[in-house]
């Protein structure tokens, strides 16, 4: 895979990572929003503007391609490049997790319940 892609995308932003992750099977834009909402237990609400922009960007960089495009829905699926990039990021996150576990005894990482994040609107 292109070295430049790795350099631009790793480490990934959370939204980018979740969008890529949700394409484990072919999905259309709105399907991604719903799936990520469910998967993260409501912690992450993707804005449709972000999803559209990210998908265009991924398509331009050949991380995903169009699977089927009928009436109104464009369905995307991962390309080999996209899969490879996602796996690289997964390996990185696994490393992060393992390192966290090593330091577990000093910090109380498990205790606080992750609250659904408040989406901060920009100008409000």
């Amino acid at each position, binding site marked *: 895979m292109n070295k430049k892609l790795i350099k631009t995308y790793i480490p990934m932003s959370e*939204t980018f990572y979740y969008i890529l992750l949700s394409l484990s099977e072919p999905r259309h*834009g709105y399907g991604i929003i719903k799936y990520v909402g469910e998967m993260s237990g409501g912690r992450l*609400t993707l*804005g449709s*503007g972000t999803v559209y922009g*990210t998908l265009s960007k991924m398509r331009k960089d050949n991380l995903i391609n169009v699977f089927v495009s009928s009436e109104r829905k464009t369905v995307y699926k991962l390309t080999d490049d996209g899969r490879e990039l996602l796996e690289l990021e997964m390996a990185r996150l696994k490393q992060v997790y393992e390192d966290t576990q090593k330091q577990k005894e000093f910090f109380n990482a498990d205790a606080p319940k992750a609250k659904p994040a408040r989406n901060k609107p*920009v100008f409000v």
Partner: protein
Amino acid sequence: MPMRRKLSPHETSPSSFEPLCRMLKKRRAAKTMLFVYLFVQALDILLFVFTIVAFATGEMETAGFVVGVVFCALLTVPTVALIFCMRGIGKKIRALEGESGQKIRVRRRFERDILACERWLNGMHREGDALAYADLGAGRFFFIRAESATVFYRIGSKPADAPVPPEFTEGGRFTEICASERRFILKTELADPPLSPSYEGELNRALKIKSRAASFLVGYGVIFGVLAALIISFLVSYSVTEKFDLAMVIVFSVLLSLFFIPLIPGILRYKRVARTVKPLEGACDNPFAALSPSFSPKELEKLKKEKKYVKKIRFFWLTAPDLCERWLEKMEGQGWNLAWMGKFGGSFHFIKGEPRRIKYFVDYHDGEAEYYSLHKDNGWTLVYSARPISVWSHGYVEQPPVFYNDPQILTRHAKALALVTPICSALLNGADAVFFVMSRFAKGTTFFWVSGLILLPYIAFLGWLTQRCIRYYLRVRAAIKNIKYKM
């Protein structure tokens, strides 16, 4: 012998059509040569006329006249030869068409009116010419002889890197005829197939062209309209305060009208696209549709009397969209529900109703059909759309919905706005300054003061716009600083 031209890389044709293609290429080459040679022919005619006139007036001797006429006649030979050559090729093409039952028709600008092109293909089939293949890049359609039948052709569009959606050809509803990078042609015998390619892609394309044409017209009109208004006001004030000079008025009016000549092809282009948009909008459930007036003028008049309808004019909300969003949200909170916006985005029409919590968002994106359908699926309502600007609204209970998790995107537009407005207004101001300085050299001082008075509000207005844009950019930048997501 007409020159041979190689197939240009984007031209494709099926191999069975090769002989016909070759003949067509020959005809095209002959046509090009003829076209070029017609310039020589025009000169030749001029020369001929000149010779006759010179001879008739006795300026030229007989020998010169004969030489001139012979020379002109010789120059005509290639034209005649080319015309005969083309007729020969035409005969051969017709013979070949009759013999093989093949036909090639060129419709270069078929994408300007897809519906008409489909009708044309259906008509060709009814007359016994079935479409065998189409080179959509070059607009060439290849037909073969077939039984006359009622068949429906559909031209669909698709994303550049996608295959033709298989569900159309599944179950034998449609037969795929050909596909180019962005379009494909299907054939069906059903008059009303249950699932057929939508016209959204074509509509999107037409709308994009329309918006480009419109923004050219508006931009050009505003800039030159302002300049023209200034020049006219200077002329008037000069004529009134100094002296009236008819010649100057005429010269300036002619110059001014020259400025507006580029508007004519622009208007024609806009009208042409607008004509294609209408039928396409009717042919699909239009995902680009924004809120539109739902009351008749009479009902509105009644509502207005009952103080339930308000129209507000805001022209420059685009220079600070966040303020406009907040204003609309405040109006909704007071029970003034935004019902629709004017065609050019200058007016906001409110109907009195219940107070609502609604989030408004102004976005800049010249997207595909998916852009609009995705936001609509996600619960946003398209309030107003004039590409690349779109205004969205979304009702909520507790948490305002987000449009972007990464609002850094907004900075790009804000920055462009904050840069372009000062430059534009500086340019416009510069042009006025020239007039202002010029007026200093006029004899009296009255003209100077009058022109100054005309300029002052204008400069103040441009300054006001500029500070609005810059302050918008600063607000966006300050807001972005607090965002945690990175893109």
